[in-house]
């Protein structure tokens, strides 16, 4: 039998806001790092964590690490808070959209002036 717990009607949305915003920021940082590594040979060399994969290994590892750090920090700060979720969500979607755009090669090339 499924257990049903009764909780306050408006439980804190802080932890969800933290997860959503951190995800948006993580995707944005992935796009930024992808474009930056494409435009800078020294950064690409620094991000070459695993030689067979090349700079992609560093771009994705750093983006994932930053995403998880961001999530952890925001979750700790907003643990018991109820925030204006629509505002947080708008920023999260903005970051997500920018991240998606930056992974699109023609946009990245435009950004790098190619």
């Amino acid at each position, binding site marked *: 039998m*499924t*257990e*049903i*717990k*009764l*909780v*306050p*009607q*408006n*439980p*804190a*949305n802080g*932890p*969800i806001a933290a*997860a*959503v915003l*951190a*995800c948006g920021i*993580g*995707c944005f940082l*992935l*796009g930024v790092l*992808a474009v930056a590594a494409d435009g800078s040979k020294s950064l690409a060399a620094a991000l070459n964590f*695993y030689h*067979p*994969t*090349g700079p*992609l*290994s560093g*771009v*994705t590892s750093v*983006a*994932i690490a930053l*995403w998880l750090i961001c999530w952890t920090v925001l979750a700790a700060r907003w643990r018991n808070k109820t925030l204006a*979720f*629509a505002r947080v*969500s708008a920023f*999260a*979607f903005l970051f*997500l959209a920018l*991240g*998606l755009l930056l*992974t*699109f*090669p*023609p946009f990245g090339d435009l950004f790098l002036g190619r």
Partner: protein
Amino acid sequence: MEVTQRELVTMIHGMLFGGFFLLALFGALVLLLDRFNPDRSNSDRIAVGISPAQPAPRWQTLYLIAMVAAGWAAVLSGATIVYPWYRAVAPAGADLALYPQRLLMSHPTTAGWHNFGMEWKEHVAWIAPMAGTMVAWVLLKHRAAWNAHRAVRTTVLGFAAVAFLAAMIAGGWGAMINKKAPVQGGQSYQLMGSTK
């Protein structure tokens, strides 16, 4: 009927992990849409200021965990195993059929498959498991808040849709690029005896 080691691993990466992740994400989208308007049968509880926090059924928990695991398995196996075979540098005079990136780049009419397709796929793919993980985590850990706030449900649904879109782009380009310049080589395995 035989398959090479690299072909087999590429199939596991794309068709098993990637394919299951894409299908599971679509299922999660259907689940989210189905639950978009939470059950109002507990209106008496809502009226007194409390709402039901029904935990996710066990099958949903397993389903969402399997979805996230498949997503990460797809990007990690792709980036650390298949991609190095794809981008390997061909020695002078080598048969380019074993070096897909070099094969594509060797001709202006096929270079776009790498310069546009692979360049997009190798980055956008990571957005899918990141967003998928967040969606699964909210559904499993914060179902009460998800039930209580329409804005939360809308946002989670939006991220799930973007995860699906990113997975579709990555999977679609992967399949097309592998048709144009397949990753192949390594030891051969006999899957089935010859019919002759």
